[in-house]
């Protein structure tokens, strides 16, 4: 693409991109997010390209001479559609059919029936309770969502800037750069009350204002894409599916605070996000949307990518900037705050991916519009990654203030296997647990704080009645302890001691007094740790202790784990009346603890048993019980 030197240039190329899209008679979007790729969507893409005669390596060219009409089919690799449970997904426009669990061998039928014939392939459509949903938008999983940030994820090709341009990409940048002053931009964001989506919920506009008024004139804009919370992948999906939206938000932020350099810090565990961002930045540079004198406005901005190196703590602001500087990623005491002395000691705007992705639409539609969505104090939408024991695992976006009940039952399709709901872990290892009594609490920054939980970055791990909450608390404590950077004593030593106690409890060595000690330690860490991660490290334990104290008591007093999760507290038995003597359990036992004569009941030698459960999982007659 030629360098765009003015608003007119951009408008011209945008019209072309839009014309190209509207001239397409049939558009096939194959989900190429991490999930669907792992499910084999690359092969589907290649096969459909073959069938449709697209060259997968040919990029979209926009020379003057190239006619944009008469494109019959267009095959695109899109970002995450969100419905990961049903992947690999294929969407076909203009019919909006969504095909689920597609296999490469389905491609011929898709081509013949849908691409050539315009009819749906019934067997690939989503069905629930006997109803078949041909159109993606009607599927309950999507129908109850409000996808604004994720609007383009799954609807545009993720590796071509022309696709983004056809769907309003860089329109807000054009508006901000060419018609607004930096102060006006800040005012709009400030008035919108956009709050940081990374977990803190701090006002974005306020941050920008503070950076803009610093005396130091060298400033930086940094994007936190170090999404380390286990069970959260919202930011990954934005970076993979619509990278230009987030980049556009960053350029606008840079313009607002007069920064000329920006950094995106991405987790190394997200190789696809890194490669899509690199492509997007290269394309934006080529088009002149990043670089010197953007669109002839006189404003210049350069963007770099830094890959993380596997430290969870780098999601904390001061640790993240230290890591970009080439230091150990450890938080420091504040003040001075990042807005005063951030990256390389200069004033820095640090927001997360989803926050930046909110910026373009607010600039385009205004702060009043933004306030019509969500709750009074938490306007806008929030993306959540819904995982665990739920039917529709995936990525969703709903207005702030939506209740857990709507998310779990309407969108998520209820608990897997028809089991009972027990709890939801919100906000990852820094968050807390919500239980059935909290199902109707509106999810926003403030109401969750009252519940001792936090919205965090947006990971929702749903747990059913078979989940042991003590074990879950131990799991999170193990995570935090592993990831503690070791700088401050409360977090380094405190989490270790808490973990030791929790290990005692799940191994049947716990005492009642230890529960009080856990609480005391937890409070001390919360009060005295250096950074936000340390301060919230004890939250999962404190919150489960409060809500599920009876389960802790069972573990320490009766030495019993009601879910059978804690192996040391359970034992396996073969019920002689049910055992047919098939020997399948003995063959699957990894430690040869099961013996017996064929066709007569087998027995388990408890001294050898390591309680792995392989016998119970493999018994065809349900004769192995856990107590």
């Amino acid at each position: 693409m030629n360098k765009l030197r003015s608003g007119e240039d951009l408008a011209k190329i945008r019209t072309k991109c839009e014309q190209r899209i509207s001239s397409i008679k049939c558009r096939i979007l194959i989900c190429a997010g991490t999930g669907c790729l792992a499910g084999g969507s690359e092969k589907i893409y290649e096969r459909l390209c073959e069938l449709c005669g697209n060259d997968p390596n040919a990029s979209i060219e926009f020379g003057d001479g190239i006619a944009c009409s008469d494109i019959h089919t267009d095959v695109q690799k899109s970002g995450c559609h969100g419905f990961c449970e049903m992947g690999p997904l294929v969407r076909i426009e203009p019919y909006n059919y969504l095909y689920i669990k597609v296999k490469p061998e389905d491609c011929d039928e898709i081509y013949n029936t849908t691409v050539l014939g315009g009819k749906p392939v019934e067997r690939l459509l989503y069905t629930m309770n006997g109803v078949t949903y041909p159109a993606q938008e009607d599927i309950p999983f999507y129908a109850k969502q409000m996808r604004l940030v994720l609007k383009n994820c799954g609807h545009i090709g993720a590796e071509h800037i022309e696709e983004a341009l056809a769907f309003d990409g860089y329109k807000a940048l054009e508006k901000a750069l060419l018609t607004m002053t930096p102060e006006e931009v800040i005012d709009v964001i400030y008035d919108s009350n956009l709050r940081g989506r990374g977990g803190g919920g701090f006002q974005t506009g306020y941050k920008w204002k503070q950076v803009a008024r610093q005396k130091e004139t060298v400033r930086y804009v940094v994007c936190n894409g170090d999404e380390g919370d286990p069970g959260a992948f919202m930011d990954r999906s934005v970076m993979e599916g619509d990278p230009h939206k987030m980049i556009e938000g960053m350029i606008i932020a840079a313009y607002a605070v007069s920064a000329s350099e920006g950094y995106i810090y991405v987790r190394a565990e997200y190789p696809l996000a890194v490669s899509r961002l690199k492509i997007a930045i290269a394309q934006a540079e080529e088009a002149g949307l990043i670089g010197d004198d953007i669109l002839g406005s006189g404003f210049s901005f350069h963007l770099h990518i830094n890959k993380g190196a596997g430290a969870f703590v780098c999601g904390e602001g001061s640790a993240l900037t230290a890591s970009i500087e080439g230091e150990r990623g450890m938080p420091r005491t504040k003040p001075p705050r990042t807005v005063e002395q951030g990256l390389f000691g200069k004033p820095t705007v640090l927001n997360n991916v989803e926050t930046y992705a909110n910026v373009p639409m607010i600039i385009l539609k205004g702060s009043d519009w933004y306030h019509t969505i969500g709750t009074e104090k938490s306007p806008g939408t929030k993306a959540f990654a819904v995982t665990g024991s739920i039917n529709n695992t995936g990525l969703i976006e709903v207005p702030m203030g939506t209740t857990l009940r709507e998310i779990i039952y309407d969108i998520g399709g209820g608990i897997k296997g028809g089991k009972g709901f027990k709890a939801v872990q919100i906000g990852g290892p820094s968050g807390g647990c919500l239980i059935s009594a909290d199902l109707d609490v509106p999810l926003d920054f403030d109401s969750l704080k009252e519940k001792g939980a936090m919205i965090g970055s947006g990971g929702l791990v749903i747990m059913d009645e078979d989940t042991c909450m003590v074990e879950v608390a131990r799991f999170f404590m193990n995570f935090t302890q592993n990831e503690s950077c070791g700088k401050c004593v409360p977090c380094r030593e405190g989490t270790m001691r808490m973990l030791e106690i929790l290990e005692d409890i799940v191994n049947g060595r716990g005492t009642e007094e230890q529960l009080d000690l856990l609480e005391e330690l937890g409070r001390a860490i919360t009060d005295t740790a250096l950074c936000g991660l340390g301060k919230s490290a004890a939250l999962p334990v404190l919150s489960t202790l409060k809500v599920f104290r009876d389960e802790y008591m069972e573990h320490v007093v009766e030495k019993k784990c009601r879910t059978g999760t804690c192996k040391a507290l359970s034992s396996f038995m073969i019920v002689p009346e049910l055992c047919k003597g098939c020997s399948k359990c003995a063959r699957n036992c990894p430690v040869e603890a099961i013996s017996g004569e064929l066709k007569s009941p087998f027995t388990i030698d408890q001294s050898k048993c390591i309680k792995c459960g392989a016998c119970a999982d493999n018994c065809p007659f349900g004769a192995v019980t856990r107590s």
Partner: protein
Amino acid sequence: MLDRSFYEKADEIIADHGKGKESLIPIMQDIQSIYRYIPPELLTYVAEKIGITEAKAYSVATFYENFSFDQKGKYVIKVCDGTACHVRKGTLILERLQKELGLSDKKNTTDDMLFTVETVSCLGACGLAPVMTINDVVHPAMTPEKVSETIKKIKEDEA
């Protein structure tokens, strides 16, 4: 002393990233992506070239979990230990892998240098839990049986 080609490669990488101290992490990442570990001699070399002390470089390298001074196997298998994988029994995947390959939490590379088994915090592929990656390719919805099959297949291909 390493072969000269190692230092030449390191020079190229340093030239790519520049000699500032903020280049240390990207340089080490590139070195590791080539050799699957950081030869300790190269860390010393890089530190000198970009003008920081060896102690400083070592302190940074050891802080981040991704860097390793130990050689890794040809197939690096990472088992996700994120919440979603944990809830869907990811531990069984790790146990089976370790059992199949005779590895443990302490010994994570096989003697024939074919396999390295590690855990990794959330890979963000929670919809497909439990997952593992082999040389960064995601293997979804794993079961202990699938682990055994996969390992068997790699061993056959290598034989």
